[in-house]
């Protein structure tokens, strides 16, 4: 076995521009988008016909026919058909989790290279038959006699013809993610203005990054779309202030379509490798994946917010690496909602919360906000669930690489089911 581990290098990434649901990619499925994203990565790094150690990717909203989504996408791509692949599904944590999985195999010497990715479509979402009808159809399928068949069919009721549409709802609470976030926002007293300000900065930062060509080697246009179409370069606090709250109840509701992420279609991929593999092919090393941590909270009975798990994961990760929250040059906190980012930061600054909930002697403290999401995040790009992790890993790796060697970045991504995935990158 390999007793020694090494840090996996992030060579580069590729994604297609993210599109608001039912827009530019309305007719594209997950496999189309993931295949195109892999092909863009192949073209950027000259991987035509090459075999990489593995491709790990996934989707949150997935058709049952896509049971082997990643492998099928590899087969449709210009990668060698000898490249193994598997699907991962951890809600919005999927993209970062795949990067961690691939990086860990590289760290252990089990593979020399791999691609991590994710894709999601809210436009081409799977629609299932009604649960009662499904049971009826299954009994019909197993019926052997005419009598049994007739009996099974007699169970069909008109109401069963209504299909089951996937909803952005927590199965155990019946609340949407936005409603959960609104509870947390209220609990942490996150104001409307600071949410709108964070959203504005996300749009401004993303627009500036596009303007200076930062995404030239991170994005490949798809189906005529060349930039994330959720980006509003000309939005303003005044415009954001006019939007009506959509989550939360009463006059105190603060969460609008402007400071929440929209349903989005898109895909992303990241090429990881050992330093040796990259050097042998004259490929760049933007950064290394240093360490990662996942955590989960009990949002059903535990009195913790649905999207607060990263708050718990980060101190564990910091302690293991002997770092403080202030030891980072860049922070990438996924903007599921502006209020989520703000609640996360506020929680880390709160002595009572850090002591009681996180078991820390002292709060993690504040961060330098000018280092947060410097090239925009999900509020501006949109958030195709499983594709967000790959977007953030590639964006942060390039950000660190541009800043020079020895720079450090922290990624924090919240996920449905009360989970969170966090990681450290270093150039």
């Amino acid at each position: 076995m390999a007793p020694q581990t090494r840090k996996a290098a992030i060579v580069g990434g590729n994604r297609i521009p993210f599109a608001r649901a039912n827009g530019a990619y309305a007719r594209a499925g997950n496999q189309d988008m993931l295949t195109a994203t892999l092909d863009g990565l192949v073209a950027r790094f000259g991987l035509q016909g090459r075999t990489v150690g593995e491709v790990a990717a996934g989707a949150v909203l997935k058709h049952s026919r896509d049971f082997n989504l990643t492998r099928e996408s590899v087969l449709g791509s210009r990668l060698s058909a000898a490249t193994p692949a598997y699907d991962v599904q951890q809600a919005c944590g999927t993209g970062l989790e795949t990067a961690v999985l691939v990086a860990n195999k590289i760290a252990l010497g089990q593979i020399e290279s791999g691609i991590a990715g994710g894709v999601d479509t809210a436009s081409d979402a799977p629609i299932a038959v009604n649960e009662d009808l499904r049971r009826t159809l299954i009994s019909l399928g197993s019926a052997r006699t005419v009598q049994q068949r007739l009996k099974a069919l007699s169970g069909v009721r008109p109401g069963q013809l209504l299909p089951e549409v996937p909803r952005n709802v927590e199965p155990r609470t019946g609340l949407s993610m936005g409603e959960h976030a609104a509870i947390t926002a209220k609990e942490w007293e996150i104001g409307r203005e600071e949410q709108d300000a964070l959203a504005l900065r996300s749009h401004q930062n993303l627009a500036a990054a596009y303007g200076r060509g930062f995404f030239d080697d991170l994005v490949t246009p798809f189906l005529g779309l060349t930039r994330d179409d959720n980006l509003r370069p000309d939005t303003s606090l005044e415009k954001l202030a006019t939007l009506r709250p959509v989550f939360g109840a009463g006059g105190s509701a603060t969460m609008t379509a402007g400071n929440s992420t929209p349903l989005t279609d898109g895909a992303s991929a990241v090429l990881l490798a050992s330093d040796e593999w990259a050097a042998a092919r004259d490929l760049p090393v933007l950064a290394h994946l240093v360490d990662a941590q996942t955590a989960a909270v009990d949002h059903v009975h535990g009195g913790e917010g649905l999207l607060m798990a990263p708050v718990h994961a980060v101190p564990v990760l910091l302690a293991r690496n002997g770092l403080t929250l202030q030891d980072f040059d860049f922070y990438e906190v996924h903007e599921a909602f502006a209020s989520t980012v703000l609640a996360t930061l506020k929680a880390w600054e709160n002595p009572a919360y850090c002591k009681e909930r996180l078991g820390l002697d002292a709060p993690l403290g504040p961060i330098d906000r000018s280092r947060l999401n410097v090239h925009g995040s999900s509020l501006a790009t949109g958030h195709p669930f499983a594709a967000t992790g790959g977007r953030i890993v590639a964006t942060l790796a390039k950000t660190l690489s541009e800043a020079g060697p020895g720079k450090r970045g922290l990624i924090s991504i919240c996920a449905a089911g009360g989970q969170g995935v966090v990681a450290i990158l270093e150039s």
Partner: protein
Amino acid sequence: MSDWYRDFANSGVGTTITRQLGLPRPAVLRRYEPGQPLLPGPALVGSAGEGRLRDVVTGVLTAAGVRADGGRDDERLSAVVLDATGLTGPAQLAAAHELLAPAVRRLGPSARVLVLAEPPADAATVAQAAARQALEGLVRSVAKELRHGATANLVLVPAGAEAALAGPLRFFLSGRSAYVDGQVLTLTAAEVPAGDDPDRPLAGRVAVVTGAARGIGAAIARVLARDGAHVVAVDVPAAGESLAQVANAVGGTAVALDITAADAGPRLARQLQARHGGLDVVVHNAGITRDKLLVNMDADRWNAVMAVNLQAQLDVTQALLDADGVLRSGARVVSVSSQSGIAGNRGQTNYAASKAGIIGMVRAWASEFAGRGATINAVAPGFIVTEMTATMPLGTREVGSRINSLQQGGLPVDVAETIAWLAQPGSAGVNGQVVRVCGQSVLGA
């Protein structure tokens, strides 16, 4: 894209009709495919005066397995090569007539007439200069008389440049030069590396192609890759989707880059150095049109065309020259000019100016490149059938595509083949030249 008229004229009933009506009868041109023989049939080699290139010519023909004995009297000739380097005065031109007249009668389809001479400017006497210059009139006229896809070209070989002839000779005889007709190419003395694999002359070379996402650029990428090069395909970020498809189709690398950006040259140089250890071939193909009559043209149209078509070529080339060790020895730069840059074109003052500027650029840079053992040349496409020409009105398109000696539009691959030839190590003696790929267009001739 199909040429419906050419296909019709070559059909059974079409042959009869076009012949009786005296309509143009464009031929299906012999185009290069890997493994294809240099010439399908025998060649006739002759000379006017005491030529000095006969050995080079028969050497190239023999090495390619071509019979250089002129074949039997009843056999179609695939090429006739006239060595006119021994001309001393007009009297000896009679020998040219004597050789060519019966030979042209025997030419097969897509045959080649190639005349080799010395540059008039190097002549020892006025009579010699006159005789050498006379060849240009002869070649340009015979090119107009030839039928069935045959072409005629003149190569001027100064004393001392004999070693540089083999590569150009092979190009003009082969199917690679299908749409190059009625042209005069002047060689210069240069050290030519030995032993190209004729089927993969660019093996191991790294080639950058700008504007590679579609059209002629994509064809250039395909031909360079076919000839063995690793292609770095460059285009604007917005064209990234088709750029990736081109790069993947040719096993190359896609680089999304706006070549007019201030740091485009250094960025490209850094990437080529880091990822490929340098580069051997640069094809400046990216270009845009913003047509308007001069009186109606605003500054934006003028400036955009200049920035992309000319200034970016100057800047990127300079950046590559300046970047230490990026441009490897024996480097080849090929710029895509245009017939408009030679003949001018109504509504294209900006475009024609930029494309003429390219010609000035390669001529001015040639000696510096020669000093590095490198070359810089331009190709000037004529009417090339692309997605862009497909949107032209039928009448304009038909006239545009027929007013040349081959009576048809060229294909993107014809431009690409000429560029790939200029990119070869064996083209060391072609420098500062403008090669028209226009089927001997009447425009600007």
